[in-house]
């Protein structure tokens, strides 16, 4: 059997005393948490340990004795032996370290059924091998079967770190009990009340363990927490008013509901409302995940607002708004002119192709008229554009995401004519494709059976065949003209969709990126642990094992994956192949996000 002793680094130079910790009996390992110094009254120690046990919920016990004798403290051997009878335990560790050589001696006393103390364990002499961190090496006489592994750990880091993947709630009885390392981490994290005893406190007991050096700062934190309560109440009250306004009946009427589900500003608004509701709830976060979620939301909200303020500062500084508004109408004119030229080109002989002249002219005139309508609409709007932009820019004080969503909506509204062209072209093309495919079946003497959802053979009359073939020919020869218009307007539409997609992606990125977790990972890598890594401290042959346990930080990609805020996905729902197929058949494509698909 191998006995593993997890020993905190801060206790390496502690004065002699009692080792307090926990036996993880199922795995034969002991976690040392603190050293209580001499002199003490055993009753006080027992009482203190019981108190701590009640506070922390960890099965604390006295593991053994620790001695680092100063000058003139000799002959403690028997005294240490006697201590084990005062604190009856199944096993009693006796760890010695000598000042001059800084050596370690470890004895394990075993208590058998008769209550007799039997010493049958290793006696080890550890020579000092100072390996940077001031650890001691071990030297073992290998006559016994039981061996000891010392694992040195840094108490503060282990206490603060969170082992991933996170297991919360009650452990499942079906699966195995939590692993040894997880138990060890939990033990150290839960025994926080033990670490509150200050070195300079004037009490009956003195102990060595990790202790905080920043108690004053925590007063500020407490004051801030108190100050945040009324703020949360205010936000909660505003939210309730806002929800009441949103739930007024007029908003649930059909056209408004449909419109609000399509406008990305409205979606962003509802999303933020949900976040604020989560943040303003008076209950403290239950568990690590929820705490991280709240912190991520707070940080990303603050960053969002800061970016929005930056945008406002730029927009309103040198009257950029007026500049933008003045640029918009000429830009729209320019686009209209370009489209005009494009249509003229299509109405002639585009790229040397010979189109059906009559259909070409009809389609071209139809679209030209549309552009004319559009441009007069823009000119009608032009006096109001500056005002709209001015008030719209104010929305950036709610955050950059709002400004981006508003921009996306504005782009959608301003390019409505392109959308219309696209829809007409696509519908026409779609009709032709469907007509051609069904007539192609007729051509081969088959038909689509709706009931059985398959193609059956069918005998047609001569008239039917004649008309069908004639129509097929007509459609086939008219197809290139329609396809050309469809192609051009689809390309235009794709440009708009791409732009809106980029806007949606950046909004989604700001909303969901776990900034707090990422900052924690960069500044304090030990807080989010993927696991541990060990380093061998003692290099000499034939010595006992002294390992240094370090924390292996979580990978950045894993941080993003674990702590991403839940968001309405706006990623394309179709794969690329499906998108190309849709384009080929002439189905409509949208950049709109789907509110129903919530991914994590």
């Amino acid at each position, binding site marked *: 059997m*191998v006995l*593993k002793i997890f020993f905190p680094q801060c206790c390496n130079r502690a004065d002699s005393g009692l080792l307090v910790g926990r036996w993880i009996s199922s795995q034969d390992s002991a976690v040392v948490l603190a050293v209580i110094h001499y002199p003490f009254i055993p009753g006080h120690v027992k009482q203190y340990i019981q108190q701590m046990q009640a506070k922390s919920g960890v099965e604390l016990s006295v593991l053994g004795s620790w001695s680092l004798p100063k000058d003139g403290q000799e002959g403690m051997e028997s005294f240490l032996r006697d201590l084990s009878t005062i604190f009856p335990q199944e096993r009693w560790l006796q760890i010695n370290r000598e000042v001059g050589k800084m050596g370690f001696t470890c004895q394990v006393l075993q208590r058998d059924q008769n209550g007799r103390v039997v010493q049958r364990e290793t006696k080890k002499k550890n020579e000092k091998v100072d390996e940077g961190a001031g650890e001691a090496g071990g030297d073992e006489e290998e006559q016994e079967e039981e061996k000891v*592994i010392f694992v040195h750990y840094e108490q503060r880091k282990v206490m603060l770190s969170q082992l991933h993947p996170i297991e919360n709630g009650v452990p499942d009885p079906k*699966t195995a009990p939590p692993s040894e390392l997880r138990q060890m981490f939990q033990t150290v994290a839960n025994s926080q009340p033990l670490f509150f005893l200050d070195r300079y406190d004037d009490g009956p007991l003195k102990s060595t363990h990790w202790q905080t050096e920043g108690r004053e700062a925590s007063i500020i934190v407490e004051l801030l927490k108190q100050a945040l309560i009324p703020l949360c109440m205010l936000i909660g009250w505003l939210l309730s008013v806002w929800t009441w306004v949103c739930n007024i009946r007029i908003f649930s009427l059909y056209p408004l509901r449909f419109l609000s589900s399509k406008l990305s500003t409205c979606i962003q608004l509802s999303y933020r409302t949900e976040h604020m509701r989560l943040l303003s709830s008076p209950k403290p976060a239950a568990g690590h995940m929820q705490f991280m979620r709240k912190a991520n939301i707070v940080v990303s909200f603050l960053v969002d607002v800061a970016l929005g303020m930056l945008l406002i500062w730029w927009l309103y500084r040198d009257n950029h708004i007026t500049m933008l508004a003045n640029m918009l109408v000429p830009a729209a004119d320019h686009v209209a002119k370009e489209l005009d030229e494009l249509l003229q080109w299509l109405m002639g002989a585009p790229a040397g192709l010979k189109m059906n002249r009559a259909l070409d002219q009809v389609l071209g005139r139809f679209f030209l008229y549309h552009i004319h309508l559009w441009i007069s609409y823009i000119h009608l709007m032009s006096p109001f554009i500056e005002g709209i932009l001015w008030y719209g820019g104010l929305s950036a004080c709610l955050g950059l995401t709002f400004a981006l969503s508003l921009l996306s909506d504005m782009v959608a509204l301003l390019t409505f004519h392109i959308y219309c062209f696209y829809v007409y072209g696509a519908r026409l093309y779609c009709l032709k494709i469907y007509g051609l495919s069904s007539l192609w079946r007729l051509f081969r003497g088959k038909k689509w059976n709706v009931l059985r959802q398959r193609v059956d053979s069918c005998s047609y009359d001569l008239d039917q065949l004649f008309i069908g073939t004639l129509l097929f020919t007509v459609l086939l020869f008219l197809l290139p003209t329609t396809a050309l218009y469809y192609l051009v307007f689809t390309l235009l539409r794709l440009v708009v969709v791409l732009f809106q997609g980029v806007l949606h992606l950046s909004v989604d990125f700001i909303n969901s990126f776990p900034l707090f977790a990422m900052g924690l990972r960069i500044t304090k890598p030990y807080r989010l642990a993927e696991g541990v890594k060990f380093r061998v401290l003692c290099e000499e042959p034939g*010595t006992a*094992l002294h390992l240094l346990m370090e924390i*292996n930080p979580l990978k950045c990609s894993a941080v993003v994956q674990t702590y991403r805020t839940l968001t309405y996905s706006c990623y394309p729902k179709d794969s690329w192949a499906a998108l190309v197929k849709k384009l080929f058949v002439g189905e409509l494509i949208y950049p709109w996000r789907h509110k129903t698909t919530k991914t994590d």
Partner: protein
Amino acid sequence: MMEDESFTDINGKSISLDCQSHSSLCSEFIVSVPKVSIGKVMVYTCCVWLLAYAVFFFTENTAVLSSAIFITLVGMMLHIHFVKVDHESLLVIGSLGIQVSSSYASGRETTTFIEMSKIKDIVINEAIYMHQIIYYLCVLLKEPSDPDAVSSVVPLFQSSKPRLNCLVKVYKSCQEIISKC
């Protein structure tokens, strides 16, 4: 105890195996891959620069040359940071677990520690790799619900790929330690 022996990997390049036995419970195996040779670096750099010069000769655009320098530098950095493994080590600690780490030429180190309670066994496996059959050492992980089943396999020495004689040596020492606990 420290031994240093040279072996070859599956492509016939020489690698060295360094066995360090810290105690009867713990030993470390380090497989070191030879450093990247100056000749190889020269050849790649010359290829990129000659190509860039040829493009420059026709286009007469100096941006080509500066971008070639940039590409070479960035490529080298990425190569030593993400691709070129300097040594891989396997630390077996009886009753505690197995630690696999690989350090890259730039000094970056990736480490994973597998607890003993999750490990089923260490075995040598056969695999078809390109047009040959190779042997590799791997750790079998237990299924948490069913201790007899194997949930996944963690291959060891993935980038150095030592030959069977080297693997057998590591395997024997590992089994010795694991069987003790």
